[in-house]
């Protein structure tokens, strides 16, 4: 008893296995936040270190899709990437089998431009790499990790929510999702020029950042859209016709929230 108390003097009442049980029943985001309560709470969510000597997409995918032993589960990947100056390091947070967050922002690699293609394996739903992930959150995807992300998305046949965040260098993103995808969100990708999304059962589309070209194909159930264009036009020329095409994409929906300046610009145009 004395030993246990000297290791964890701060947790006076509950043993760590009960605290872990409680944390596992908190929604993932709030659960991850408990790590700033104290160092002892952070140790309840200690990351599992995963190291590879090479960039083996298959092996990484195995780790990402493996059901976790406890939840939330934090994996810290360190990969030695051939011919690059730095190793690739990234964090993954799994919430049970349903939720996966990939954060590549630890990488100090140069930000070069890239396009991202995400296609779900809808033609062959019984492929061996089936994953039950419902929510996929991708942060700071870069040129080096875009193929990994594409492969991951390919295996998420029942994905319901996709969020892309802070992908510097991402110019064009194309998403072809299965019927399960209902929520798409993209925020703070400063170099973005276009989004093409095809998702038959998409209900909610949320965007924040510079004004891109947006094409939404065949999403008849779309009811809610948010376009927060706080970062303006970005680097490109835009004319009102593009804006009209953009609005055309949202003409059937029930609720559209859009930054005011866009409408002002268009209504004042000749």
């Amino acid at each position, binding site marked *: 008893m004395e030993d246990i108390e000297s290791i964890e003097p*701060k*947790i*006076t*009442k*509950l*043993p760590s*296995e*009960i*605290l872990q*049980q*409680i*944390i596992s*029943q*908190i*929604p*993932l*985001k*709030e659960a*991850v*936040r*408990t*790590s*700033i*309560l*104290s*160092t*002892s*709470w*952070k140790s309840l969510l200690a990351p599992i270190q995963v190291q590879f000597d090479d960039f083996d997409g298959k092996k990484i995918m195995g780790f990402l899709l493996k059901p976790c032993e406890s939840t939330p589960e934090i994996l810290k990947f360190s990969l030695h990437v051939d011919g690059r100056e730095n190793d690739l390091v990234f*964090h993954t*947070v799994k919430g049970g089998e349903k939720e996966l*967050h990939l*954060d590549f*922002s630890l990488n100090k690699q140069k930000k070069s431009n890239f396009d991202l293609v995400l296609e779900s394996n809808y033609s062959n739903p019984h492929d061996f790499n089936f994953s039950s992930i419902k929510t996929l*959150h991708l*942060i700071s995807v870069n040129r080096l990790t875009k193929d990994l992300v594409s492969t991951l998305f390919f295996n998420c046949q029942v994905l319901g929510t996709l969020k892309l*965040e802070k992908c510097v260098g991402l110019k064009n993103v194309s998403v072809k999702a299965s019927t399960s995808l209902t929520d798409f969100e993209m925020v703070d990708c400063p170099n973005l020029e276009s989004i093409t999304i095809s998702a038959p059962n998409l209900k909610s589309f949320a965007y924040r950042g510079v004004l891109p070209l947006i094409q939404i194909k065949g999403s008849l159930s779309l009811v809610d859209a948010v376009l927060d264009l706080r970062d303006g036009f970005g680097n490109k020329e835009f004319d009102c016709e593009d804006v009209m095409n953009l609005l055309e994409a949202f003409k059937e929906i029930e609720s559209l929230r859009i930054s005011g300046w866009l409408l002002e610009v268009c209504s004042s145009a000749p």
Partner: protein
Amino acid sequence: MASAPENEKNASAPEKKTLTLKSMINNEEFVVDEHVALQSVTIKNMVDSDCAGDVIPVPTISGEILALVIEYCKNHANPSASEDDLKKADAGIVAKDIYTLIDLVLAANFLDIKGLLEVTSQKIADSIKDLPHQDVREIFGVENDYTPEEEAAVRAEHDWAFEGFP
């Protein structure tokens, strides 16, 4: 032959074997049907290995908490209770303040009653998830032992989870 199980059913409570659970905190005693008490793996192990006398002493659990535990076990020992009934009954048992819940989860852990452990920790999780962190620290007796720099580093590790968090 067909009437045999019928008889067993009718000859219910009086002939059933009972156990007495005694809280060692306030010496309160509870007489419980054995099959109710056996939902506790800890008690079952004691009974199976013949370690249990007529009165089973339960250390560190107060009578108030033990009564809740027994209520849970009774509900779940009732074969005619529907899943809905049990859910409602469970919700009633865990509709308590956070400190009672912490005692209850410790009791469920000690007595090894998986279902009670789960519903109680779920209730604790629901109660604390939206609380300010200082309140959570107080509830669990935790002190913030980070330097501001360390705390910033921990936040930076999982930036996405702290967006908009004070």
